[in-house]
């Protein structure tokens, strides 16, 4: 062993000491809290453990993407809540992004009316607390919807009522083949793209990549329908009478109003912030860039696609990542309007029935942490992909 390396005079060793002490202090604090909780729980006769996850949950959940009823375990109920949280977050992020981009671009429009409407939208929706917007959509807007017997009908195949939006259910035959054709189409598109890039870089040829991709995406599944026995039928919702004045729809799929209200509120709210990011991104591209592009004869669309957007995206992506994270975390407000997300189902009902506050809250916090970090990792990857590549 080289004694000199462990000497305090050695700068490296000296630099390590404060770090070691910090870690030690941090560990002591954690251990203190853990033992303190353990002692107090022991005094009050509360046991600690995760065995309850295998117990029967014995409560039902309105809306589940996997098979679930009360005879399943608390672990399964957790999964139902988690999937519901992911569902509303994905829907919210999807619509917030679309609305955000449209509004952001509209704010820069030369049309006075469009620009002003977009501005007012942003100012109103980002300045009202989200929970109030959720209540507004759920209790005020959806309350105006009719009862099932007077449901708003879309061509008699879909009905919007106060109890939810009833849509036809897809009934597939040979769904696996359909899925395979879609995967094959995606792989084909990848090859088309790389071939197009090669053509452009080597010979300067522009291939109609987008039209080709769409064609592939339609053609391959179509072959499945025509030659491999894939077929799709619909099960339409039908009005059903439960008592002289109580009606509901049987069959089809019910999109519960809680999900609609929550997704609406989350995307309308988050879209305002994304719109501002988009506006900042576009304004952040130097005017000289556009002028230079115009001077070499690019069209307006080409300027936007090839010059402005690639540079604007670098400004837009990092703050938009934050908004995606916020939206996911804000989805926990679902409990207020009975949307069965992880907070309502697991940190709510399951916590109450089992009384295991510490276990359940730590699992829930870890879950949100994992969700947020996954989004961050994905967006950081996308950000790197979009960043300036020095060649």
């Amino acid at each position: 062993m080289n004694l000199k390396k462990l000497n305090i005079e050695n700068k490296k060793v000296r630099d390590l000491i404060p770090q070691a002490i910090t870690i030690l202090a941090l560990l002591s604090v954690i251990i203190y809290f853990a033992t303190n909780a353990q002692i107090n729980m022991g005094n009050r006769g509360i046991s600690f453990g995760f065995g309850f996850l295998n117990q029967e949950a014995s409560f039902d959940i309105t809306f589940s993407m996997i098979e679930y009823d009360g005879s399943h375990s608390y672990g399964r109920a957790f999964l139902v809540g988690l999937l519901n949280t992911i569902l509303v977050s994905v829907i919210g992020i999807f619509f917030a992004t679309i609305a955000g981009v449209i509004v952001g671009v509209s704010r820069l429009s030369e049309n006075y009316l469009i620009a002003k409407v977009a501005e007012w939208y942003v100012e109103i929706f980002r300045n009202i607390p989200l929970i109030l917007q959720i209540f507004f959509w759920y209790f005020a807007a959806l309350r105006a919807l009719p009862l099932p017997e007077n449901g708003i009908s879309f061509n008699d195949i879909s009905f919007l009522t106060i109890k939810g939006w009833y849509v036809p259910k897809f009934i597939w035959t040979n769904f696996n083949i359909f899925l395979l054709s879609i995967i094959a189409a995606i792989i084909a598109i990848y090859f088309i793209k790389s071939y197009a890039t090669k053509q452009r870089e080597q010979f300067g040829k522009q291939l109609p990549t987008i039209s080709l991709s769409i064609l592939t995406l339609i053609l391959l599944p179509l072959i499945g329908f025509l030659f491999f026995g894939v077929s799709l039928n619909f099960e339409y919702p039908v009005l059903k009478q439960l008592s002289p004045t109580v009606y509901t729809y049987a069959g089809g799929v019910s999109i519960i109003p809680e999900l609609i209200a929550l997704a609406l509120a989350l995307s309308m709210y988050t879209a305002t912030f994304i719109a501002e990011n988009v506006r900042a991104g576009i304004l952040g591209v130097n005017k000289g860039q556009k002028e230079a592009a115009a001077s070499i004869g690019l069209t307006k669309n080409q300027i936007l696609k090839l010059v402005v957007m690639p540079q604007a995206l670098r400004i837009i992506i990092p703050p938009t990542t934050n908004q995606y994270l916020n939206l996911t975390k804000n989805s926990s407000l679902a409990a207020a309007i009975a949307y069965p997300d992880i907070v309502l189902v697991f940190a709510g009902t399951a916590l109450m029935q089992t009384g295991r506050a510490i276990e359940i809250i730590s699992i829930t916090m870890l879950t949100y942490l994992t969700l947020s970090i996954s989004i961050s990792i994905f967006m950081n990857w996308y950000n790197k992909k979009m960043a300036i590549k020095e060649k």
Partner: protein
Amino acid sequence: MKSIKTWILVGFASLLLVACGQGGGGAGSKKSKTLDNTKKAGFVKCGVSQGLPGFSNADASGNWSGIDVDVCRAVAAAVLGDADKVKYTPLSAKERFTALTSGEIDVLARNTTWTLSRDADIGLTFVGVNFYDGQGFMVRKNSGINSVNDFKNGISACTNTGTTTELNMRDFFNSKNIKYEPIAFEKADEVVQAYDAGRCDTYTTDKSGLAAQRTKMSNPDEHKVLPETISKEPLGPVVRQGDAVWEDIVRWSLNTMIEAEEYGVNSSNASSLKDSDNPAIKRLVGAEGELGAAFGLDNDWSLRIIEQVGNYGESYKKHIADTGILPNRGPNQLWTKGGILYVPPAR
């Protein structure tokens, strides 16, 4: 070098803190820590509902009243000599047990159902029953539903999350083989709003709760409670496990109110009954025996409860019957009058 010294100092300081902190979380003593703390603070820390008429409800100026509130008032009268020395903490169904086990409150009087798992598993002790309830269903009068047997597949039912109601509802619909849509809200007010708007066809919770919430509907006369009762819901006050003396104080404060009604002792005649011929009455008003000494209280503790809060019958009449919530006492009548209220003798 300077920075190293600072870091070492910080490290030692935090280690020292940890060492000191360890002592604080130590085991409780044999005496009643809760009683000592309550006397020191000068008020009883009481957990109540977020507003359930008849049980625990605050008026416009923030004064709490109800039969649950009266349990806390009785404890305050017994321990501190003044029924008004209570600090109320409104709690949701979800928060209530954590608030109690963490010591934020010392008595939970919040229409809470006594069940085995709550009593045995999560560090709580139920001390008695101050209201015998059962779960029922509310529907619109014009719905044509007159009994739970009229429910059909596809019915949607609103209720509160985190309650025994949610579990009973499943047991009930499963036993009847009915497919239903459960919609569970965190707050009772939101359940009422959603049901009132037509989001669900029926609203299920304890029957007393249904009666109380019906008054909040936009048009109470359009709704009715179905006759069937699908579960047993004995509601009662709860304390933390591990403080036997405090547990006894709360239990016997409640028992005193019920026993006082049984012997016809009420807030207006209590002090004049000190020289009654009946020894049971004399014990109740503190003129005989040394019952308070068992919990470290003086002998007038029960007299103060009866004088300041009243007996159970007075409390029920004032908060539940006269407010029109449940004029008929049903099972909450004394055992001597055909009900099931029966408490062990105070002697």
